[in-house]
C-alpha cells in the first residue's frame, strides 16, 4: 500500500494543484491548467501552497465553484501550445455565449485571478452590450436602477460651453422650424401661400461671416503657408491654385470668416459617408452631450432644414470640384514632360522601372491625400512607361 503511494505520489504532487473556493469546497486541478492563472501560479511558486488538500490555495471570494469550472475550461483550452489563432478565436467566441449575469461574474472572477486575456475577452463582450445602445436598453440589460433625476441627467452634460455660433445657429433653426410649422398649418387649411424666406440663407451667411471675434479661427496666413508647401510637393507645377479657395471665399464675404476658411466643408466624400455609417444617434436628443434643440421636430421639416443648410455649404464649396479639376489637368500637362534620360543608359534603367514598382505607392496614396501629388507623379510615369513600351 505504502509502496503504491510512493510510486503514485510524485505524480500527484507534480501534476495537480489543490484549490479552495470561498464556500469551502476543495478540488484538485491539473497543474498546467491551474498555473495558467497568474494568481495561482504565484501562490504555488512563492508560498508553495496547493501541494496537498491541507494546503489548498484559497481562491478570492469572487470565484465561486461554478465560475471556477468555467475558468478552468478556458485555461484548459488556452494552455495548450500550438493552437492556431483561428482556433482560439472561435473557442473564445463560443465561450462568451453565456447569460449576462454569468458574464459579469466571470469577468470579476477572472480579474481576481489576474487572468488578463479572459478579462479582456469578457470586457469586450460587455462593452458590445453597451455600445450604441440607449440608456434604457443598457439599464434593462444590466438591471441598473434609473436613480438619477431628469435634471441631474442633463446637468453635467448639456452644452454649457457658451458658443455663440451654436447659439446663433440654434436660433436660426428654431426660427426656420417655426416658419415651417406655420407653413404646415397653412397647408393643412388648404391655403396656398409662398412663405419661403429667402433671407434665411443670407442670415446663415452673415452669421458665419459675422466675425464675432472668434478665438477658434484658424490663422489664415498659416493655411496659406501650408498650401504653399503642398504646392511645393507638386513640384511647383500647380502655380497658385492653393490659394484659390481663400480668394473665392473672400469674394463671398468681405469680413473675416471665422473658422470657415475654405477648407471647412471640403470633407472627402468617402470620409463623410463613413461618418454617416457611424452615426447611430440612439439617445434621445435632450440627453445628448451636445444639446441640439431638435425637440419634437417633424422629421420631414428637419430634413428640409438640413437640406437648406447643406445647400448653403455647397455654395460655399463650389470651388472644390474646380480645384480637383485643376489638379487633374496638371497631371496631364506633366505627362508631356519626358523623364530625363542621360547618356550612359543606366539612369534609363531606373526611370523605366518607376512604372512597375509604384503599386505600393499607389495604395499608399489612396489612404493619404498628402501623398496624392505622388499619385499624380506615378500616373505620369506609368504613362511614360507605356508609351515607351508601345
Amino acid at each position: 500500500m505504502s509502496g503504491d503511494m510512493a510510486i503514485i505520489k510524485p505524480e500527484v504532487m507534480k501534476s495537480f494543484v489543490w484549490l479552495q473556493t470561498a464556500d469551502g469546497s476543495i478540488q484538485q486541478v491539473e497543474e498546467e491548467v491551474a498555473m495558467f492563472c497568474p494568481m495561482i501560479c504565484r501562490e504555488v511558486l512563492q508560498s508553495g501552497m496547493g501541494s496537498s488538500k491541507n494546503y489548498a490555495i484559497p481562491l478570492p471570494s469572487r470565484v465561486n465553484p461554478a465560475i471556477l469550472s468555467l475558468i478552468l475550461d478556458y485555461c484548459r483550452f488556452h494552455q495548450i501550445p500550438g493552437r492556431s489563432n483561428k482556433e482560439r478565436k472561435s473557442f473564445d467566441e463560443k465561450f462568451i455565449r453565456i447569460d449576462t449575469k454569468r458574464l459579469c461574474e466571470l469577468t470579476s472572477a477572472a480579474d481576481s485571478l489576474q487572468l488578463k486575456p479572459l478579462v479582456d475577452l469578457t470586457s469586450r463582450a460587455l462593452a458590445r452590450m453597451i455600445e450604441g445602445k440607449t440608456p434604457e436598453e443598457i439599464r434593462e440589460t444590466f438591471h441598473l436602477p434609473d436613480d438619477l433625476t431628469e435634471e441631474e441627467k442633463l446637468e453635467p452634460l448639456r452644452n454649457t460651453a457658451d458658443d455663440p455660433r451654436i447659439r446663433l445657429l440654434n436660433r436660426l433653426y428654431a426660427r426656420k422650424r417655426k416658419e415651417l410649422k406655420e407653413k404646415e398649418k397653412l397647408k393643412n387649411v388648404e391655403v396656398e401661400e409662398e412663405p419661403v424666406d429667402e433671407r434665411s440663407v443670407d442670415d446663415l451667411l452673415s452669421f458665419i461671416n459675422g466675425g464675432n471675434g472668434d478665438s477658434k479661427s484658424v490663422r489664415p496666413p498659416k493655411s496659406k503657408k501650408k498650401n504653399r508647401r503642398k504646392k511645393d510637393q507638386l513640384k511647383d507645377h500647380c502655380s497658385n491654385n492653393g490659394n484659390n479657395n481663400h480668394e473665392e471665399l473672400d469674394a463671398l464675404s468681405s469680413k473675416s470668416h471665422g473658422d470657415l476658411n475654405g477648407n471647412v466643408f471640403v470633407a472627402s466624400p468617402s470620409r463623410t459617408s463613413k461618418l454617416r455609417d457611424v452615426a447611430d444617434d440612439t439617445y434621445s436628443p435632450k440627453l445628448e452631450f451636445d444639446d441640439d434643440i431638435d425637440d419634437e421636430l417633424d422629421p420631414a421639416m428637419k430634413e428640409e432644414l438640413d437640406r437648406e443648410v447643406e445647400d448653403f455649404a455647397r455654395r460655399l464649396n463650389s470651388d472644390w470640384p474646380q480645384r480637383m479639376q485643376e489638379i487633374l489637368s496638371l497631371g496631364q500637362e506633366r505627362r508631356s514632360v519626358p523623364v530625363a534620360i542621360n547618356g550612359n543608359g543606366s539612369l534609363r534603367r531606373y526611370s523605366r522601372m518607376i512604372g512597375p514598382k509604384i503599386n505600393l505607392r499607389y495604395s499608399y496614396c489612396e489612404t493619404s491625400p498628402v501623398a496624392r501629388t505622388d499619385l499624380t507623379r506615378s500616373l505620369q510615369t506609368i504613362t511614360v512607361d507605356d508609351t515607351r513600351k508601345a
Partner: protein
Amino acid sequence: METGSDRAPDIISNLPLNVIEGILMCLPLRDAVRTSILSRKWRYRWTTIPQLVFDDTCVPVTSSSLAVTKTKFVSFVDRALLLHRGPIQKFKLSISYLQSCPDIDQWILFLSWRNVKEISLELEEKEWYKVPSCLFSCQYLTHLELFRCEVHPPPTFKGFSNLKSLSFQQSYFENGVVESILSSCPILESFTLTYFDTLSMNICAPNLKYLRLEGEFKDICLENTPLLETICIALYMTEEIADHLEATTTCNLIKALGNVPALERLVAESYFVKYLSVKSVPSKLALKYEHLKKLELYQVGFEDVNEISVAICLLVCSPNLEELLFSASSDNEACIGPDMDYWDKQHPIDCSFKRLQIVNMTDMSGVPDEMEFTKFLLAKSPVLKTMSIKSSTYLTVEGAWDMLIELLGFPRASPQARIIYIQDNTMT
C-alpha cells in the same frame, strides 16, 4: 422613484473599478461618456479612464453643417478633458475634419501638465499641423505618433528621456531635425518614418529594435544600432535619387546593413534592393546575421546583376535563414540573357543554405536570370521543403510553359522539396 427591491439586482455596477474602466475603454469614447446618465453609480465612472481616444465617432454626423460638427467636436474634447480626473495615459486624436487650431495646441499643453505618456495626432488630410512647442516638454512620453505634422523642436528641447516608440508619418521637418530628435531619445526601441522626401539619414540609436522607413531617401546609414531586430524599408525612386545613386561611390549595402548583428527580420520593398545594389556589392559581409530567420526582398530587378548579388550576399550571410520571400520586378527588355559569366564565375559556389525551408517567389516572369537564381536556390538548399512560384501577370501562357519545363529540369539538393506553381488568375 423606483428602488432596487422590485427589480433584479444590478449585475454590473459592483465590478471592481479597474474592470469597469476596462469595459469603458473598449467603448468608443462617446459611448463611454454617455454611461454617465445610466445611474448614480455610473455617473462619473468614465472620468477616470486612462485612455482618451477622440475620433470621428465622438460627434455623430447629423445633417448639420461641418462647421457645427467641428465646433461640437472641439467642445466635446474640451469638456471631456475638463471633466476627466486622474492620470491620462494615452491621448489620441484621429479626426478627419479638424485642422490646425489653437484648441489642439491647448489640449496638448493641458496634457503636458498631466504627464501624459502616449500621444497620437492625426488630423485632417489636407494640411500639416504644426505641433506646439509644449509637446516637446512632455517628459513622460513613452509613445509619440504624429501624422502630417510639422515638427520643429524648440531650442530648449532636451529630448524625450522616456520615449520608447516614435512614429512620424508624412510629416515635415527641417534638415537634421529627425536625427537630432533620435539622438535625444536614449531608450528608443521603435522608430517609424514614412513618406519622407529626399534625405540622408544617419541613425544612431543604441536601443533601437524596430525600424521602418518609407520614402525618398538618398542615404541610409545605420551607424549605431546594435540591438536592431526588425528592419522594414521601402525606398522610392525619383530622378534626383537616381542621379544621386549614379554618383555614389561607397557601398550602400555595407552602410545600411553592415552593422546590424541582431537582425531577425528584414523587409526590403520597392527600390530598396536597387539602392543596396549600388556600388560594388561584396560577395560576403564582415558580419553574419546569426538571428535572421526571415528575409523578404520585394521587387528585385533581375536584369541587374548587382541586385541579384545583393540577394545572394544576404543569403550567404544568414546561416540560420529559414524563410525567403521575394518578388521579382524584371524588365524583360533589359534582360538580354543570363549573365553566364556571373552565374559561372562570380557567385559563391561553395555556399549552402542549410536551414532554408521555405522559398516564396512572386511576380516571376521567367527571364533567364530569374531562372538561374531559382536553379541556384534549388541546388544550394538541402532541407528545402517548399518553393512556391507565382507567375507575373504579364507572363503569357507560352512563357509559363517554357518556365515550367525549365523548372522541371533543375537539380534539387533537397529530396523532399516541393515546387508549387501558382498561375495568376487575372491573366488567361
